[in-house]
């Protein structure tokens, strides 16, 4: 049989077949299983050969990154713990400092009260002393002014009385008295 006849026969057969129908309800055609298996093996082999190292390397990098993050987290936690300890310690120090400052303020206030009371007492004593001195001085001044005024008035009165009483007879009497007294004083 000629080739044409063979092809025509095969073609006729194929055209006569219902291509939507397979010999088995569950299994494909044998060649499809064969070619599919071979193709799958090739693809998996290529994948294993070519992509495997990359995947392996990526996984290792990811592992390292995760480990680094874990280490960093651990370090952060340690630092946080240290800082927390410091804060707790500082809090204790703050309480102590607060107590110390309050005690110091109390002592300072007590000192100021004591000093102020002493100073006030001294100032009061000084003011009292000065007031007493002023009173005494004022009293003395008033006495002195009074005495001076009396003396002034008395002087004026003496001048007035004596001058008014010095008539000619008195002048002569004074002169004669002087002459007599001087003459008798040898």
């Amino acid at each position, binding site marked *: 049989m000629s080739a044409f006849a063979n092809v025509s026969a095969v073609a006729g057969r194929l055209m006569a077949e219902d291509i939507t129908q397979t010999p088995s309800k569950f299994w494909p055609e044998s060649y499809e299983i064969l070619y599919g298996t071979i193709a799958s093996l090739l693809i998996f082999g290529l994948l294993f050969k070519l992509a495997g190292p990359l995947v392996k390397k990526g996984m290792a990098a990811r592992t390292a990154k995760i480990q680094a993050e874990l280490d960093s987290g651990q370090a952060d936690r340690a630092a946080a713990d240290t800082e927390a300890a410091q804060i707790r310690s500082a809090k204790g120090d703050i309480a102590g400092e607060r107590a110390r400052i309050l005690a110091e303020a109390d002592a300072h206030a007590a000192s100021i009260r004591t000093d102020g009371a002493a100073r006030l007492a001294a100032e009061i004593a000084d003011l009292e002393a000065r007031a007493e001195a002023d009173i005494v001085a004022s009293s003395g001044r008033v006495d002195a002014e009074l005495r001076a005024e009396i003396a002034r008035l008395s002087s004026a009165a003496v001048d007035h009385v004596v001058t008014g009483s010095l008539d000619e007879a008195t002048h002569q009497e004074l002169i004669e008295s002087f002459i007599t007294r001087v*003459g008798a004083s040898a």
Partner: protein
Amino acid sequence: MSDNRIEGYARGLFEIARAEGTLDEVEDELFRFARSYENSDELRSTLSDEQIPAAKRQAIVEDLLGGKATSTTTQLVSMVVGSGRGRDLPAIVDKLVARASSAKNLELAEVRTAVALTADQQTRLAAALANATGKQVNLKVVIDPSVLGGLVATVGDTVIDGSVRTRIDQLKSRL
């Protein structure tokens, strides 16, 4: 003016008065004029004012003393004032009086009184002062109203104070 000049003027006036034979009168008049001069600010400032011409100052002196003092006294004062020594007139006169007293072996006795003394009182006072001081005195009486009453006698360094002024001052001091 220096003491030498005052002394020189006093000696000159003294010699003139003695030559004129009027020493006692001139001495007495000059003494009284000097005391008046001291007590009068107006007279002192006028006679010692260099801005007033000498002739005018001398005319003032002659007006003041003319007829009241001897011509010798008037001329002597006029000469001192005219020569621009009016400011030193009291000192010159005091020297002259001291010189005159010394020449007569007398101690100058200056007596200040509020009223004039009679001649009799002056004589008795001179005798009393001579008796009290043991020296013959050349009595010079100065009328000084500030004495008020009584007398103040100064003989050398001795002061005999019987004035009312001093008694009043003592009384005031006690007051």
